[in-house]
């Protein structure tokens, strides 16, 4: 950050310098107040995108289920089980599963193992940046009840308090076969029209946000990351 010609008002000392309100000097010498959290980010509150009815929604759900694009984001030790999934031995492609490098284009996020508070923040960002409908697969006992880190000062115990989870796959760690089974379970759920986690999240946004903010003490991002 270029520190010359930038002034910080006294308030907001708790925010990191990047997100703090500041006054910069414009080209005509005028003062411009910049509030990063308001000026850089969309502050709109999301609305639930309700499913259509009948056969159209069924058809769409079929397509969504048969084309699962997974965000390549490994949160914990479980992410080591993902690459074999795509190898010739397990070949997840045949189920329509593919990896995408950007949350915008992905419909599935896999929480692969323990989740520290710090990582949770990134998970929330990535999850909110995915488009409706989106699905969450939680891998391993750590995401279910904390697993071997159940009494850690820094690792969450229950993922479903922070983001809605569609499928839990138990184990420490689950093998690729188990993950494939989990994908098939997710497909089944979607085809049954039960993959509405994204809308659940938006409908219960306040509860989720309260849980998230309880453990993320330096909440320095907008309430919803579009």
């Amino acid at each position, binding site marked *: 950050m270029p520190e010359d010609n930038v002034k910080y008002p006294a308030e907001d000392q708790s925010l990191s310098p990047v997100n703090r309100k500041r006054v910069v000097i414009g*080209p005509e010498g005028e003062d411009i107040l910049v509030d990063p959290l308001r000026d*850089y980010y969309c502050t709109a509150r999301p609305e639930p995108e309700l499913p259509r009815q009948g056969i159209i929604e069924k058809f769409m759900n079929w397509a969504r289920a048969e084309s699962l694009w997974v965000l390549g984001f490994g949160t914990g030790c479980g992410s080591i089980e993902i690459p074999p999934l795509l190898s010739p031995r397990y070949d997840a492609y045949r189920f329509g599963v593919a990896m995408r490098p950007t949350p*915008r284009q992905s419909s599935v996020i896999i929480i692969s193992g323990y989740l520290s508070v710090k990582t949770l923040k990134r998970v929330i*960002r990535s999850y909110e*940046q995915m488009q409706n409908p989106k699905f969450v697969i939680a891998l391993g006992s750590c995401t279910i009840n904390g697993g071997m880190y159940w009494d850690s000062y820094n690792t969450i115990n229950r993922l479903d308090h922070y983001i809605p989870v569609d499928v839990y796959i138990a184990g420490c760690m689950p093998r690729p076969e188990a993950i494939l089974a989990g994908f098939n379970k997710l497909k089944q759920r979607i085809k049954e029209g039960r993959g509405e986690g994204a809308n659940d999240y938006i409908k219960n946004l306040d509860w989720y946000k309260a849980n998230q903010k309880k453990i993320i003490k330096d909440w320095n991002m907008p309430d919803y990351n*579009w």
Partner: protein
Amino acid sequence: MVNPVFIIVVLLGAGFLLGLFRKTGISLARVAGLLALAFPLYVSVGWMLHFIGQTAQPYVVYTAGTVPPFSINLRMGPDEAFLTAAINMLGFFGFIYLFRLFKSQGVSTIILYLVLFMGLNVIVMTRDIFNLFVFLEIASIALIGLVLVNKGIDALSAGFKYLIAVSVISSILLVGIGFIYYYSGTLNIDGFIENNSLVMKGLSTAVFLVLVAVVLELKAFPANGWALDVYQSAHPGISALISAGTATASLFVLYKLLPFGGHLWLQVAAVIGLVTFVGSNMLGIAQKNANRLLGYSSVGQIGLLVAVIGFSDDLGSHLRMIFFGLFISHFLSKAGLFWLSGMAGEEEISKWSVLRKKPALLLIFGMFVFSLIGFPPFPSFYGKWQLVMDLSGNGQILWIALILLGTMFEGVYLFRWLGFAIKHEVDESKAPDTAAEKMIPAGAFALLLLGASWVSNAYFPGAMKTSFLPLYFILFLFLIDFLPLVIKNTLSILSLGYYGWRLYPSIQDDTLRLVFAGIFLIGGMLTLFAGYSEKGKRPGFYPFALMMYAGLIGLVEADNLFGFFFAWELMTMGSYILIIRGKKSLVHAYNYMLFSLGGALLILFGIALTVAGQPDISLSMLASPAYPGWAYALLAVGFLTKTAALGLHIWLPGAHAEAESDVSPMVSGILLKAGAFGLVILFLAMGGGEAGRHPLLYALGWLGALTALGGNLMAVFQEDAKRLLAYSSVGNLGYILFAFSFMTHIGWLTGLTYSINHFLFKTLLFLAIGGVVMRVKTHNMYEMGGLIKRMPWSFIAVLVGIITLAGIPPLSGFAGKWLFYNAVIAKGWFLQGALVFFAGTIAFLYCFKLIYSVFLGQEKDRFRKVKEAPVWYIIPQFILIVGIMIFSARPEIVLKPIGALLSQAAFFPSEPLAWENVTAYTNLGYWSGFNIMLVIGAMFVVLLGWLLLMSRKAQKVKQFNIVYAGEAPFTPETTHFSHNMFAPYNKALGFLIHPVATQFWLGVNNTFHALAESARKIYSGNGQSYIIHIVAYIVVVYLILS
């Protein structure tokens, strides 16, 4: 008519009387002196008017009541009248200038002054050589007395050196006179000139001694160190007298005595004069001291005049006209410049920026400088033109080259100086001395200069007449410069419109000229429109803007080569001043001027080689030049300096980028077309058919292709938005050059389409970017970003501009590309064509960089509140967009008549491009701008509708709502990918744009400066070595002659 002998009587008498009444008080003495000087002025001007317009016999005064050789006779002919009038004018105004000095110096100085002018008058008038010698001595001694007015060791030693040198020269002269008397028995000039054939043998020594003494008196290079020291250390008012006054008298002495030496000595004078002109000006380029610089310039100019006298056999009846043009410019300007030097009170040329505090002084200074170099409408322009034409008529090509070289050197230091005065930072504590007694002479001489210009235009031969109407309007704009901007701007726009309306009937059948006139006039009006958004009065802008446009239109209007060159120089002058107005333009404008001057001199050379002294100077002469190869090559290179071909391009980026926001489109979108028009005129004259396979064209084709590649590649790596556009202009002019050098019908259509397109989109882009730059106050693209939300209209303009630039269908850029392909295949220049095509795809890179870095990407904090560009910028942009749309959809409106013209005028008789409704056919392919637009438009609308249907409720998000690997972007600056955007490209191809051209010109520059710097060391400041110079000079001249 008053008898001229009263001049002597009055001056001498006044001197004596003042001596007698030394005690009556200095004030009275000064008035008396002024009155005494007014009298000879009155007399000589009276005689001059008497001789104008009639062939009266010279009036001869016989002293002592007898005829020569028994008495001294004075003659008052037309030449004498004119020269004494000039000298007495100088005497009068010089006296006014020194008015305050006289007060402190006392009466004796006034006496010296009067004696000096008496001496000068007699030197001009006398026909007796001994009398001449005596008055030369009198004038010299008086002058030394005046030099010593300046106290201090410098003046003292300079005066002493001057004294020694003059004594040595006079003793040689005296010996020569002795020989003359011994052999011819007369001291009367007319007498012994008549006799000299009889006693040829013995006289040769006499001739040699007398003439070499006179030449040395004229400060021949390099035996002139003594004079330079005087110029530098004397009071500027005195230096003015030396430079303008004594030099004038001495020149006339040479003129009087030269017939005596016969043809041989004419040649000697020419050689000596030109060596002095070139040598002295070359030494001047490293000089930083204003007075000494003027000294070099004086010596050089006098050298040129000596050479003109030396050429008198070749010039014949034009001699007086040429001499008048060159002499009067030198006389008025040099005296004026010395006076200005006294007013500026600064030795160092970089400190002359103090003149800026008095714009009138700056204006006068500029006039003097331009007149010295020989810019129109000043008399020296006419003189130099006629001199060069006549010399080429006599086959004196080498002399022309030397004259032009010397002029170039002179331009190097004079424009550096002018640039400093206009743009160098100014010392706030100082101010120029603008006392009335100093303003009056300088102002009077400036007015006289204008008058002389008018005289030159009015009385010079018929073909050299140009319409002064635009110049009067420009003068009018100078006079109303104090009015508010709105009035001046409106007047300027209206005048361009009026001129176009007046011009239209005469060129409506000549579509080629119509196209270029349209570019110049419509472009001019549109770009002037943007001027409404300027604040303040914008002093000095409109006269020069109009001067540039007058020049541009003059190019189109010109029907002879003189008019063309006149307009060319006018345009150069105006555009130089426009360019130097930019904040950081000092160096760039200087580069521009040097390249333009060089180009103009080459064009003059080319024209001279074309015309070669024939009376007919119409443009059609270009079709059959006297020296076809050289003339074409010189003209082509001259025009290429303006189109900034590779190697000659280094002035362009800085000049265009640093100019003001609305000047950039003028100089880039419009001014560059002048070079293109020049090439069109040249190529037209060369004709189709056989000349179309001229090897020059082949070379120009390659040059064009390389320019396109180099310009575009350099544009890719710019961070400065305007510099990027400027380099893009280099590249685009490369396309145009390439297309024109095809010399085929379709090649020319391509070239003209490119020219029109380049005008449309480059003016558009420069206006749009200029508007943005005005708001954000920076040129660096990486500092901008995300401005689309603040400046949507500018964004649309830039988008249209780059689509046209890149040649993407359906806009008109594609028309150029399509024609281009057809032309390349028809011509068979595949390799060059592929190179140009490669350049075209490279253009895509900088187009993207321009629009992305400025308008897209991340918005910066500093620019969150910038407003849209001023509406006066937006309006012309959208007019241009409409123009692009029309040209894209209906290109046949323009291209059909041009094609018809090219066929019918038998330039390129075959017409390979046929039109069927809206579709163009060649024997290779076809293209229909209208249909393409229709299809693409319909498709775009349908697809947009489809997407709107599918995602109609998209949430609008802000700049940091991007996926960033789970993180938040740090700041907009670190998230905007713009700086060094094409680094891998640089890694791959950056070696191609190694600044070879810049280094070459730097090398040339350094070489000449080093040469001048070391050659200057011969002027050691030591009086003895100066004497050795003089003696050595005499020996060398003698050895060469024998």
